[in-house]
C-alpha cells in the first residue's frame, strides 16, 4: 500500500513536442520532466508561448496531429505510458481519470446544447448512468460548484450564463467522474478578479473534498500562491526552475522566476517603474540585477493644482430595453448613471469595477463614441456633445482610445505601417507623405519596436507587441488625452509590466492625460493618481490611489481589494 502511494500519480519524462509546418519545425516543449504525486497540486508557470498549454494538452494527447508531433518522452499515468496507449483505452482515461478545465469558458462549452446535457454526457459515457440519473447528478454537481438555483440553470444554454458561471459549469463537467487528476489550463485568466477569487476558492475546496491531484497552468505566479504545493517554471519551451511554492516566493533562483515575481504590481511599495523579466535576465539568458535607480520607490507628484482638462457633469448613458411586437421601450439599462468628475492635465484617473459596471460605456461616452442620454462633457472648456461633425473630427485628434483586444482592433489586411499612417493621413494630410512616414517610424521606435516591422501584418505579432502598435497608432495624432480601456488585461503579467512602464514613460515625455479603465485594482493603483470605483453605473468612491487602498470607505471597494491575489 505504501509503495503505491509513494509512486507518483503522473510523471512526465523528457517530453518533447514539436510543431512541423511548412515554415519549419518549432520546438514547443523541450526535454520537460516533472511529477505529480497523489493529492498534490503542481503549478506550471510561464508566459504565452512558453509551452505550458501544449504540455497540458499532450498529457491527454489532445494536440492536433499534424502539425503537432511528440518525437520523444514518456507520460506515465498509474504505470501506463499515455503516449503509447491505444486510442480506445486513452478515451477511457479522458474525462474519467484525467479531466481538463480550459481557459476560454465562453467558447469551451458547446453553444447548442443545454449545460445539463453536456455534464450528463460525461456521466453517461464513463459511469454508464441512465439519462435520468445523469441529469439528476448534473443538477447536484451544479449545486456543488456553487451555481444558484441549479434546478433551473441545468436547463440553460451556455449563452444564458455569465462568464464565471460558465467556468463553474466547465469545472462541474471536469469533476463529474471524480477524476484522479484535474488539469486546469489558465482557468481564471478570462475572468474578473473578483470572480477569479471565487473560482480559485472553489477549486481548492473541491480538491480537498475529492482528494484529487491538480496541475494548474497560469502565467501569473500570484494566482497559484495559495493553491500549489510545488511550482514548475517554464521559459522558452524548457523548465528553468522547480521548487516548492514557499521556496519560489521567498528566494527564487532562476532570474526568469525572479522577474515574474517582481513584475506584478503590488498594493504597497511599488517601484518608479515596474521591474520586468529583462531587468533580471539579458536577452541571451544571463542573470543580472536590476539597478538601484529602477528600484526607487514610486512617488506620485501632486497634480491637484494643474488646470482641469476634462470635466464630466451628471453624465447618463441609458440603453433602452425593447420588447413586444413594436419594440416599445419597457425599461432602461443604466450603464452610466449620473456620473460627475474632473481630470486635470497630466493626471491619470483610474476607473475600476467588475464586468458590466459601466466603465467601458463611460469611457466611450466621454469620447462621444456612444451617444449620451443626458449630461455634459467639457474637454478643455469645449462641450464635446455640441460640436458639428467637422469640429468633432478635429477634436478627435486630441482625444484617443486604446482598446483591450489589440488583435480585434487592428485590421488584419492592413500592414502595421498603414494602420499607424491612417490617422496621420486623416488629420495631417497637409504635411506630406514622406514626412508622415518618417513620423510613423519615429512612433514605432517610441513604443519600443523596430521600424523594420512596418510592412508586416498584425497576425505576425505577439499580444504585447500588438498592444504597443495600438499605442503607437493612438499617439500618431499627438493627442493630449487617451482613454485606455482594459489595455493590459489581455496580456501576460510579464508583458503587462512592460506596457504599463511604456504608458508611464509616454505620459512623462508628452504630458499626456489618461483615463485608465481596468478590473484589476493593483494595476490601477500602480498607474493612477486618483481612482474611481464604479458599481452599477455609479462612481461609488473617488479618491487618491493611496487613500483607496489604505483606507477604503465603501464595502464594495474592500471587496475588490480582497480579490487581488496575495501570495507576496
Amino acid at each position, binding site marked *: 500500500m505504501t509503495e503505491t502511494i509513494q509512486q507518483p500519480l503522473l510523471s512526465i519524462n523528457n517530453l518533447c513536442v514539436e510543431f512541423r509546418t511548412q515554415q519549419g519545425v518549432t520546438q514547443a516543449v523541450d526535454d520537460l520532466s516533472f511529477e505529480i504525486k497523489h493529492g498534490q497540486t503542481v503549478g506550471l508557470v510561464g508566459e504565452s508561448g512558453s509551452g505550458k498549454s501544449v504540455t497540458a*494538452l499532450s498529457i*491527454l494527447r*489532445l494536440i492536433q496531429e499534424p502539425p503537432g508531433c511528440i518525437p520523444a518522452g514518456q507520460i506515465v499515468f498509474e504505470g501506463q505510458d499515455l503516449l503509447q496507449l491505444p486510442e480506445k483505452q486513452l*478515451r*477511457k*482515461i*479522458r*474525462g*474519467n481519470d484525467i*479531466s*481538463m478545465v*480550459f481557459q*476560454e469558458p465562453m*467558447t*469551451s*462549452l*458547446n*453553444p*447548442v*446544447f443545454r449545460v445539463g446535457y453536456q455534464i450528463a*454526457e*460525461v456521466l453517461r*459515457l*464513463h459511469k454508464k448512468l441512465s439519462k435520468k440519473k445523469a441529469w439528476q447528478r448534473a443538477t447536484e454537481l451544479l449545486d456543488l460548484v456553487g451555481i444558484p438555483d441549479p434546478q433551473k440553470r441545468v436547463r440553460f*444554454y451556455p*449563452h444564458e450564463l455569465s462568464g464565471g458561471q460558465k467556468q463553474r459549469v*466547465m469545472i462541474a*463537467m471536469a469533476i463529474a467522474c471524480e477524476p484522479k487528476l484535474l488539469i486546469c489550463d489558465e482557468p481564471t485568466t478570462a475572468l474578473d478578479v473578483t470572480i477569479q477569487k471565487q473560482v480559485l476558492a472553489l477549486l481548492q475546496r473541491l480538491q480537498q473534498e475529492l482528494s484529487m491531484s491538480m496541475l494548474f497552468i497560469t502565467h501569473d505566479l500570484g494566482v497559484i500562491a495559495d493553491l500549489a504545493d510545488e511550482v514548475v517554471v517554464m521559459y522558452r519551451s524548457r523548465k528553468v526552475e522547480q521548487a516548492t511554492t514557499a521556496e519560489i516566493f521567498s528566494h527564487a533562483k532562476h532570474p526568469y522566476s525572479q522577474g515574474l515575481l517582481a513584475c506584478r504590481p503590488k498594493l504597497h511599495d511599488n517601484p518608479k517603474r515596474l521591474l520586468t523579466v529583462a531587468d533580471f535576465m539579458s536577452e541571451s539568458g544571463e542573470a543580472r540585477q536590476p539597478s538601484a535607480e529602477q528600484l526607487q520607490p514610486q512617488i506620485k507628484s501632486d497634480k491637484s493644482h494643474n488646470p482641469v482638462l476634462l470635466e464630466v457633469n451628471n453624465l447618463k448613458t441609458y440603453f433602452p430595453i425593447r420588447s413586444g411586437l413594436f419594440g416599445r421601450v419597457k425599461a432602461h439599462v443604466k450603464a452610466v448613471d449620473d456620473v460627475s468628475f474632473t481630470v486635470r492635465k497630466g493626471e491619470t484617473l483610474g476607473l475600476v469595477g467588475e464586468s458590466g459596471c459601466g466603465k467601458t460605456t463611460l469611457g466611450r461616452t466621454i469620447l462621444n463614441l456612444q451617444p449620451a442620454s443626458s449630461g455634459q462633457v467639457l474637454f478643455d472648456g469645449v462641450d464635446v456633445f455640441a460640436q458639428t461633425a467637422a469640429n468633432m473630427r478635429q477634436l478627435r485628434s486630441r482625444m484617443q482610445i486604446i482598446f483591450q483586444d489589440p488583435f480585434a482592433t487592428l485590421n488584419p489586411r492592413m500592414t502595421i505601417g498603414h494602420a499607424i499612417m491612417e490617422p496621420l493621413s486623416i488629420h495631417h494630410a497637409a504635411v506630406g507623405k514622406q514626412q508622415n512616414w518618417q513620423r510613423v517610424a519615429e512612433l514605432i521606435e517610441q513604443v519600443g519596436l523596430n521600424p523594420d516591422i512596418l510592412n508586416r501584418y498584425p497576425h505576425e505579432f505577439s499580444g504585447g507587441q500588438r498592444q504597443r502598435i495600438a499605442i503607437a497608432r493612438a499617439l500618431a495624432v499627438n493627442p493630449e488625452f487617451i482613454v485606455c480601456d482594459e489595455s493590459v488585461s489581455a496580456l501576460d503579467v510579464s508583458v503587462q509590466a512592460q506596457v504599463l512602464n511604456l504608458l508611464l514613460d509616454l505620459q512623462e515625455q508628452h504630458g499626456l492625460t489618461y483615463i485608465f479603465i481596468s478590473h484589476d485594482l493593483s494595476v490601477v493603483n500602480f498607474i493612477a493618481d486618483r481612482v474611481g470605483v464604479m458599481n452599477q453605473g455609479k462612481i461609488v468612491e473617488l479618491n487618491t490611489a493611496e487613500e483607496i487602498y489604505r483606507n477604503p470607505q465603501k464595502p464594495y471597494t474592500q471587496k475588490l481589494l480582497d480579490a487581488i491575489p496575495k501570495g507576496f
Partner: protein
Amino acid sequence: MLWLILTLTFFLLRAAPGGPFDQERELPPEVEQLVAQKYQLDQPLHQQYANYLKSVLSGDLGPSFQYADHSVNQLIGLSLPVSLQIGFCALIFSLFCGLLLGIIAASYADRWPDLVAMIVAVIGISTPNFVIARLLILWLAVHWQWLPVAGWQGGDWPYLVLPVIALSFPYIAAIARLVRGALLEVLQQPFVRTAQAKGLTRTEVVFKHALQPALLPVVSYLGPAAVGLMTGSVVIEQIFGIPGMGRYFVQGALNRDYTLVLGVVLVMGLMMLLFNLLVDLLYRYLDPRVKGT
C-alpha cells in the same frame, strides 16, 4: 409582401412591348377588338389591375390567354404537384449526398477523400445541368437500359430517378462545400476539444458536437434552394418531358400570357415565404442563441 411582388410583376409585364395575341400575321381589327373585350384588355390599366386583384383575392387567378380552354388555376393545379414531387425528392437527395460528401471531406481534410469530394463538387457546380442530364440518359437509360429515357407516367418512380439526380447535382455540390467549410471551422472551436477531452470517440465528436452548429449555414441556404428545386427547372422538364410548372413560366413570359405568369409568380412567392419561415423555425431549433432577439 406577396401583394408587392404581384403588383411589380403586373406592371413590369405590361411595360414589356407586345401583347398576348400579337402574331406574325395581323388579325383583322374587329377580331382583335372582340378578343380584347373578352379578356378585358380594352379597359384602362388601373381598372384591369383592380379587377385582377379582386379575383386573386377570391382565389381565381383568371383565364389563361394562351391555353384557351384552361384557367390558370387548372394549369397550376396540374403542374404544381409534379414539380413539388420532383423538387422534394431532389431536395432530400441533395441534402443526403451533400451532407455525406461534406462530412467526408471535412473529416479527411487535405487528404485524398477530401480532394475527390471537392473535385466532384466543382464539377457539379460548373457543369450545366442539361449536360449532366444528357450524360445520365446516355449511360443509364440508353447504354445500360436500366431506366426509362424520359416521360412521366403519373410519377412512377423509375421515371423520377434521372430527373431528380440531374436536378440535384449542383445543389449537392453547393451543400457539400458549405458543410465542409462550416465543419472545418467548427472543428477548430475549443468546445470540440472539450468534447474530445471528455473521452468521446472521433465519430461522436463530429456527429454530435460539431455537426449541429455546422448545419446553420446549410439551413440558410436551404430556403432558396428548396424554392428553386420545387418550382421546376425548364431545362430538366424539357429534356425529360415532364409536365411541370417551369415550362409554363417561360412559355407564359414569351407569349405575354399575363395571367399565367402572374399566377406562377404568386405560387413561387408564396413558397418562398413559406420556406423562409420554415428555415427560421429550424434555425431557432438548431441554435438556441437566436431566440431572445
